[in-house]
């Protein structure tokens, strides 16, 4: 076994040194040597790690004793062995005295190893002893100074072997008294018999120490709790060393603390407030665990209490990086100034979530030095609170914005002073007052003065009843004076401690205008819809609901609008069964458009009506059909007219056919009749039976001939058969008929003059007109008592008679008047009564043709019809027949006599139809006019132009191939303005007397003209002075200009 040896060797003889080292190695040492030979080197080589110093004695200027002295001076406790070949006994004694461990002669080196071993052992023992002594001294001092008591106990007996000073003071014993006691004398909880067990337990815990709690009894008998810390110590023998600490105060404090802590923990837990303490002295010391946390603070940081080791680093690690500096500064400042601080900072939870912590810290100062010792703080998780704060702030801001930035004018006014206390931007914009102006005004100031009393009255009522608010529509006045209509909404609340109203004002001026416009438009629509004769209707697209139907429905359908709206199905029910299916099918397409149907409806009274129904889908903005509107027109009359027209066409066809066959038919009948008669002649005096048979043949043939005549007569219904007649007799005939049919309530008053001139008229037409006018008159009286008057008289018309309201050539007329005392007519009705199809009668009661027919007949008679009427007073129709013609029915011989004869005037007769030209010429020649007949208008014009004064009168046809009669007339008048011209025509549709008069033509003569009419016309025209005609012409011109 080798032992390591750290050696400092002082030797100037290397061979000696080698020798010594070899000896040591041989002795079992592994030597690490520092060989030195000067004082400086020796001093440099000294250090505590040395195990041994070997030193030669004589080293020239240096020697072993000196080296020993240096060693002692250095206080190093290294064994020093002097090795010398020269020194004697005295030197050796001196060296030992000075502290050398041993002394060896160079020549006796064999003892070296044992000497070294011994020296080393001695040195170790020396060191241990010194240490023990030092420890013992320290221990005693410690024990005596300590507030704790130290006791040394004999494990076998439990007797106190030694006790500290403190132990005696605490227990009230002297050391002598104390040392006589046993453990169980001191601790009442321990019985004498318990000691060996306790001692065994202490021994078992010899390494880590035994800790227990116990009781110590003082000399005076009082006890106090102690904490015992015992240790089994083996020195020269076994001991038990105990340290007992009085824990009375600690227990009290602990108890109090526990209570406090419990309350605090509870408080902290409830408030989620954690607390902490920071040892300020160690604040900057990273190693020191200077920070203490309450349990709640752990929870605040997201940990279970104690789940993490608390430290400054740990704390900062959990603080949001951006907030760390803020805390450092605050803590530093607090420590420096002693001021408390208060701050919010963010922390990061273990899971990374961010929380906001409110920290409040106070500095605790040392009472004596006044230096900061501890920083005590609380930390509270205020995340929710701050979030709520933010929300609240945002919410307040939002509400402020709602008011301030609300696009609707809003304001708050004080209910007592009526002053504006807040107004928003929109109010300022809308009303034109600035904020400041508003705040200086009351709510009365934004109203027209005349509205203020109403407002004040309302507000005075508010005092007692706050539920009634001045809501509704008001007139407000802007700063610029403009009046607006506003809808006001009001809400009471407390504003800045005062009773106030929040008002929201909605300007509805434009809306109101559009509503008014809409109402007006609706009114116009209603007026239109309710006054047109067509039914105007609106339904939903499904046709299940009638949204509107105009009153004309009642007139046409004979049912009420209400009944239709209540039951829309009645619309279909009213349709004639034969038309219904077709209409139902067509109605399905109404929403698609293109519905246009004509059908029959049945009125409740059983009568039929023809209607034309049209519908149009109405679409909304998205193109969906949301309504169907339509019109329904009563076309019964038109339909009947069309029927009549078709009838007339049929008649025309029959007429044409009849005309065509009559000729042949009559030839055949003529042959039959002729032969039958001839046969009868041959049978003179012969067979009577044959005579009878032939009579039968003739009778049949005559009946056939009569039938042909009847058909022909039927087909020429429209043709006038004018004859010269006295109207009296013609008018009386229909009156006989009328008396039988008109109610007895109506009194007939007939006054027919007897001295009437003859007129040219168709008796059938006169008959028809009288019937027509009288029926109308009776109808106008509607079954009420009244008077129907029929008067015939002669009247003289001298030019246009404004009083009579008639335009007629001057002359003698027979006037037939039919009057009634009925309902009369409005002016507007009077103006229209002669229009074809105009009627005031209920549908079905008249065709509207009667009066137009009368008008047409009178016009074709060269006469006129006028009407006088006043609503409620009755009407009177006057028919003017121009007097003229023969007083007796025409006959061949009379004709010649009655027509005035001419006196050789030169007449130019132009007619493209040669036969007619011939007839005309022959008539005129007969009547003593020098007549030139021409068939070509152009030639005729050349003839006149050649010598205008060679002609006294021109008679021209209207329709001619090369030049119309009117054109010819105009050309002739251009050459000779006073030329009397008569225009003849077969048609009367485009021209009338007035028109031709205006053209400067004297007379319009209808073809075919008779000997008489032509003769009278020529005579009268030649007799009319130019200036008289000029007046008529001007009157016609002005009349035409007016119309």
């Amino acid at each position, binding site marked *: 076994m080798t032992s390591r040896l750290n050696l400092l060797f002082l030797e100037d003889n290397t061979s000696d040194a080698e020798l010594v080292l070899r000896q040591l190695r041989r002795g079992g040492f592994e030597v690490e040597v520092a060989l030195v030979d000067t004082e400086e080197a020796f001093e440099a080589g000294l250090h505590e790690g040395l195990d041994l110093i070997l030193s030669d004695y004589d080293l020239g200027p240096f020697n072993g004793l000196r080296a020993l002295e240096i060693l002692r001076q250095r206080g190093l406790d290294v064994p020093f062995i002097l090795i010398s070949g020269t020194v004697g006994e005295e030197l050796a004694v001196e060296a030992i005295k000075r502290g050398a461990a041993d002394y060896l002669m160079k020549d006796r080196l064999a003892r070296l190893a044992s000497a070294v071993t011994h020296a080393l052992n001695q040195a170790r023992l020396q060191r241990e002893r010194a240490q023990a002594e030092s420890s013992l001294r320290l221990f005693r001092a410690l024990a005596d100074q300590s507030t704790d008591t130290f006791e040394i106990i004999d494990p076998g007996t439990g007797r106190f072997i030694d006790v500290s000073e403190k132990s005696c003071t605490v227990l009230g014993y002297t050391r002598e008294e104390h040392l006589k006691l046993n453990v169980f004398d001191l601790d009442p909880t321990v019985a004498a018999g318990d000691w060996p067990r306790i001692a065994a337990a202490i021994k078992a815990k010899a390494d880590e120490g035994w800790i227990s709690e116990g009781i110590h009894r003082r000399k005076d008998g009082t006890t106090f709790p102690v904490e015992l810390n015992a240790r089994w110590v083996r020195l020269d023998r076994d001991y038990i060393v105990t340290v007992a600490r009085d824990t009375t105060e600690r227990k009290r404090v602990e108890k109090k603390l526990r209570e406090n802590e419990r309350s605090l923990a509870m408080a902290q837990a409830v408030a989620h407030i954690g607390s902490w303490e920071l040892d300020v002295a160690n604040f900057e010391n990273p190693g020191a665990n200077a920070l203490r946390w309450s349990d709640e603070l752990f929870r605040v940081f997201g940990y279970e209490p104690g789940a993490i080791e608390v430290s400054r680093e740990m704390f900062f690690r959990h603080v949001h990086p951006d907030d760390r500096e803020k805390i450092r500064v605050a803590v530093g400042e607090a420590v420096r100034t002693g001021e408390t601080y208060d701050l919010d900072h963010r922390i990061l939870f273990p899971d990374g979530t961010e929380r906001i912590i409110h920290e409040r810290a106070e500095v605790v100062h040392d009472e004596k030095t006044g230096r900061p010792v501890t920083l005590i703080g609380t930390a509270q998780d205020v995340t929710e609170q701050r979030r709520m704060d933010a929300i609240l702030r945002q919410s307040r801001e939002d509400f402020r914005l709602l008011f301030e930035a609300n696009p609707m004018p809003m304001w708050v006014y004080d209910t007592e002073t009526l002053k504006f206390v807040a107004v928003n931007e929109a109010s300022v914009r809308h009303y034109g007052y600035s904020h400041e102006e508003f705040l200086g005004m009351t709510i009365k100031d934004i109203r027209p003065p005349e509205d203020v009393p109403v407002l004040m009255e309302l507000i005075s009522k508010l005092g007692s009843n706050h539920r009634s608010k001045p809501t509704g529509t008001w007139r407000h006045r802007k700063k610029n004076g403009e009046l607006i209509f506003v809808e006001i909404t009001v809400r009471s609340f407390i504003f800045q401690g005062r009773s106030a109203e929040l008002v929201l004002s909605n300007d509805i001026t434009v809306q109101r205008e559009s509503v008014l416009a809409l109402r007006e438009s609706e009114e116009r629509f209603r007026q239109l819809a309710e006054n047109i004769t067509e039914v105007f209707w609106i339904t939903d697209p499904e046709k299940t609901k009638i949204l509107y139907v105009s009153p004309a429905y009642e007139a046409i359908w004979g049912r009420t609008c209400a009944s239709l709206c209540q039951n829309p199905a009645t619309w279909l029910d009213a349709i004639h069964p034969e038309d219904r299916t077709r209409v139902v099918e067509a109605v399905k397409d109404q929403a698609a458009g293109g519905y246009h149907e004509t059908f029959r409806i049945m009125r409740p009274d059983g009568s039929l009506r023809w209607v034309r129904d049209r519908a149009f889908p109405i679409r909304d903005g998205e193109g969906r059909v949301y309504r169907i509107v339509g019109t329904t027109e009563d076309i019964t009359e038109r339909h009947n007219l069309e029927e009549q027209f078709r009838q007339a066409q049929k008649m025309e066809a029959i007429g044409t056919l009849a005309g065509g066959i009559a000729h042949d038919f009559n030839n055949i009948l003529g042959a039959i009749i*002729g032969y039958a008669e001839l046969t009868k002649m041959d049978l003179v005096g012969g067979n009577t039976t044959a005579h009878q048979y032939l009579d039968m043949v003739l009778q049949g043939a005559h009946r056939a001939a009569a039938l042909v005549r009847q058909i022909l007569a039927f087909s020429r219904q429209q043709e006038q058969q004018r004859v010269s007649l006295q109207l009296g007799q013609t008018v009386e005939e229909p009156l006989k008929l009328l008396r039988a049919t008109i109610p007895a309530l109506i009194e007939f008053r007939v006054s027919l003059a007897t001295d009437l001139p003859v007129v040219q008229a168709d008796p059938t037409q006169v008959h028809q007109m009288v019937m027509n006018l009288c029926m109308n008159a009776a109808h106008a009286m509607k079954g009420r008592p009244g008077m129907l008057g029929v008067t015939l008289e002669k009247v003289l018309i001298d030019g246009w008679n404004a009083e009579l309201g008639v335009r007629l050539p001057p002359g003698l007329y027979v006037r037939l008047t039919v009057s009634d005392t009925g309902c009369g007519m409005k002016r507007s009705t009077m103006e229209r009564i002669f229009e074809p199809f105009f009627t005031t009668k209920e549908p079905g009661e008249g065709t509207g043709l009667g009066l137009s027919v009368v008008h047409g007949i009178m016009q074709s008679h060269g006469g006129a019809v006028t009407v006088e009427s006043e609503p409620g007073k009755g009407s009177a129709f006057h028919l003017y027949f121009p007097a003229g013609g023969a007083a007796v029915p025409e006959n061949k011989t009379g004709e010649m006599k009655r027509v005035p004869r001419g006196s050789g005037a030169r007449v130019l007769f132009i007619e493209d139809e040669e036969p007619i030209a011939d007839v005309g010429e022959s008539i005129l020649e007969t009547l003593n006019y020098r007549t030139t007949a021409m068939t070509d208008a152009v030639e005729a014009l050349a003839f006149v132009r050649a010598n205008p004064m060679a002609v006294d009168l021109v008679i021209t046809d209207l329709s001619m191939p090369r030049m119309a009669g009117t054109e010819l007339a105009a050309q002739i008048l251009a050459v000779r303005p006073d030329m009397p011209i008569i225009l003849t025509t077969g048609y009367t549709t485009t021209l009338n007397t007035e028109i031709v008069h205006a053209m400067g033509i004297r007379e319009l003569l209808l073809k075919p003209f008779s000997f008489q009419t032509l003769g009278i016309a020529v005579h009268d025209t030649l007799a009319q002075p130019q200036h008289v005609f000029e007046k008529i012409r001007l009157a016609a011109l002005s009349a035409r200009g007016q119309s």
Partner: protein
Amino acid sequence: MSRILLIEDDISFRTMLCVALRQMGHEVIEASEGSHGVGLYQTGNFDLVITDLIMPGQEGIETITQLIKAYPSVKIIAMSGGGRTTPDSYLKMAKRLGAKEALTKPFSMQELNGAVDRVLAMA
């Protein structure tokens, strides 16, 4: 006995008239339409013309006009049984053009005889 020109397109009626007029003691020359009649009239010495009005070819009104123009003293009896409306209108026109009598078809022998006698009696 008189010499009569009878213008009539309907053969059966014409034949019947011929028989009747001859029985009345007159000499009758027949024509089936107007221009034929006018041609015959120029050749013979007729006392009376009896003409239908509606005929194919040249009708009666024209025929009458031509005859009267050429022979103002010609004696004509017009007869008609048809027309666009009634025979009367044409017959009236014929009379105005110079026909002395007008007969509406069908007529009796008596009417015919009376008319012929009256016209022939005219100066």
